[in-house]
């Protein structure tokens, strides 16, 4: 680590500690998995505080409200955030998905209009990609956007839309050419959610809670000026976004994984599970696995320039999502019978939440199977089937 990086880490740590033990002590640790609706108003205030502190869009160019921070520094921020037990981020799709997309593909006007709201911690975005008929095969998108004057009129349905019930805007992949098929004829549209013609319905998940939603468009409108990239070029723009999603944030999340593992180990020591050879070996394997995740991230950082390639991101997603799913199962095995009862109204303990929620890790943002196709075809060069 360079002296600059060490100084940066100290600055981040001091700021987060001051906030999260002071004025924002009440939000520390809130809004984690399975608790996404916790203290929403306070967490939106927290996002604004982060924005005011200049911590959103760290890697973005200075003229767009960022700091031009290196990849290493962005990872440091994510590490310190986890270490400080920062609350679940509400603006992560704003900062990591739509923001970088507008930076890469948006017009000067779009950058002026939309980026300041993100770096200020104000605007909450959600992602309108998946549909009932377009999951892993995203090119099957059927939501239509028909041009009427200087507006698009949207009809269709999106699904698995995280945080749509609290978001201000949605970035939507829609079919603007009704005669088109597959990857052509799609456009990337920025759509305000607060309007007639949009209905958001929560989806109850296996945890009993609702973090994602169905979003129905029935005559919803957005100006043509809110299209990112050319009409019909939405696939290319959306693929850029997926690259960002599978990118930098995952490198910094290992502090959180470390906390989860330490917790499971502590439980095992307390209840005697650590003395059972099979469980102990699985715990050691999990511990080793987390070290390997770290060494891999270090290696990625050493070889990466300012961004993480989609390929590295696919390898990393397969690696960590599988690791974490295994940890979830191990947590329940360590607890034994204690893990078999839940609280009133299916209230889950952190270990039960880990067990159930980690099933989503290997599905969202490109399932393990899709990631394997990417690795097999793009890294190994195996032929398409």
């Amino acid at each position, binding site marked *: *680590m360079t002296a600059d990086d060490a100084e940066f880490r100290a600055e981040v740590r001091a700021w987060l500690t001051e906030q999260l033990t002071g004025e924002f002590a009440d939000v520390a640790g809130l809004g984690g998995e399975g608790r996404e609706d916790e203290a929403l108003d306070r967490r939106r205030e927290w996002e604004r505080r982060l924005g005011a502190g200049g911590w959103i869009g760290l890697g973005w160019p200075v003229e767009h409200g960022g700091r031009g921070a290196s990849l290493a520094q962005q990872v440091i921020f994510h590490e310190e955030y986890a270490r400080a037990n920062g609350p679940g981020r509400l603006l992560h799709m704003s900062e990591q998905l739509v923001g970088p997309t507008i930076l890469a593909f948006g017009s000067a006007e779009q950058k002026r209009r939309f980026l300041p709201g993100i770096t200020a911690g104000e605007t909450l975005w959600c992602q309108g990609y998946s549909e009932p008929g377009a999951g892993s095969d995203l090119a099957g998108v059927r939501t239509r956007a028909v041009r009427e004057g200087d507006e698009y009129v949207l009809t269709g349905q999106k699904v698995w839309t995280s945080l749509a019930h609290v978001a201000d805007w949605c970035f939507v992949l829609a079919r603007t050419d009704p005669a088109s098929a597959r990857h052509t004829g799609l456009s990337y549209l920025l759509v305000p959610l607060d309007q007639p013609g949009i209905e958001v319905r929560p989806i109850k998940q296996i945890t009993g809670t609702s973090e994602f939603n169905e979003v129905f468009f029935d005559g919803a409108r957005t100006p043509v000026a809110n299209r990112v990239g050319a009409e019909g070029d939405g696939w290319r723009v959306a693929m850029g976004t997926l690259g960002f999603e599978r990118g930098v944030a995952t490198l910094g999340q290992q502090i959180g994984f470390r906390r989860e593992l330490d917790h499971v*180990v502590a439980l095992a020591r307390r209840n005697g599970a*650590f003395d059972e050879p099979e469980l*102990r*070996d699985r*715990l*050691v*394997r999990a*511990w*080793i696995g987390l*070290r*390997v*995740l*770290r*060494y*891999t991230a*270090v*290696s*990625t950082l050493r070889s990466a320039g300012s961004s993480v390639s989609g390929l590295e991101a696919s*390898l990393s997603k*397969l*690696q960590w999502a599988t690791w974490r799913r295994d940890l979830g199962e191990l947590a329940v095995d360590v607890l034994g019978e204690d893990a078999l009862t839940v609280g009133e109204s299916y209230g889950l303990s952190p270990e039960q939440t880990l067990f159930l929620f980690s099933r989503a890790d290997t599905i969202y943002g490109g399932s393990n*199977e899709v*990631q*394997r*196709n990417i*690795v*097999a*075809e793009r*890294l*190994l*060069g*195996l*032929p*398409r*089937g």
Partner: protein
Amino acid sequence: MNEDEGLREEMRKAVADFLRAEADPARRRTAMDSDDGYDRSLFERGVTELGLGGLTVPEACGGLGLGFAEAAVVIEEFGRAVVPSPVPDTLVAATVLAEAGEPAQAVLRRLATDPVAIAVAGLAGPVGVDGGRLHGTARAVPHGARADLVLVLGEDGGVYLVSPAEPGVTRTAHWALDHTRRLADVEFSHVPAKRLAPGDDLARRLVDLVRIAIAVESAAAASACLEATVAYLKVREQFGRPIGSFQALKHRCADLAVAVHGALATARYAVRCAASGAATDSSGDDVATVAAIAKTVCTDTLMSVAADCLQLHGGVGFTFEHDVHLYLKRGKANQVLAGRNAQLRATLAAKL
């Protein structure tokens, strides 16, 4: 890329070219079936033409004065090609001898100029020491029967340098499960030997570097084995198309690629830890911990990659003629050598 990395990449290329020319599959087969169990002339040319023997020997002793990071590059390339050779163990031994300083001066000077193969003995259990004499048997010593010198781990925590020509040293050569790494039992009956350093730091260092070297060669071998398999899947046709287009096989390869990616990162991380001189890394792990992690991860990876690659080759993979079994056997042997993986994990449990 900084200057050191540039040098290492040049070395990597030079060693890879050398092995491609001098250790092609046919010659590798001849070597592994020979009396020595390896190609002595390849070893001698590696020493004289590439300067491998003196790589980590200090310049004051006539060597190149490079460190373990550079030695590891050579070990990686030997691992990729599963070449039967005492070069990796000799490089590890030479690195440790260089760190031993004055007591090893004479042998370091020899290493810088002459082809001297060194075996490491006592990894399967240290050798007895009584009044400055070694007694007992070191089992499963890689290339132990034909080594010019033996570096012995003593049960007193010392490291001893012994010439097998000394009276009282008896070597029993064995053919090995791993066709590419001949083993020997080396018996010492009250052999006077020179202890290289007081304390047990040098012995710990030797064990750590042996484990990291095994990790490095295993990760590299796993990478090469997967590459060869992927190349085969692209050309082998069944049902009218390349079998590499079938998703069941592609997904298997993708999982192997994830494992190889992690193993290479782990092995190289361990090398940097060992070469850095720092007592601990940013997680608070000492070199011994990182070495044990790397050894288990990389050898498990080689074993599982080679096992799957054999399966992916179908019947051809079960033939002696095909090389995939060399990787499989190396993988299994490396899981066992220098501390069985289950045993290393049991030790690591104390770190949790």
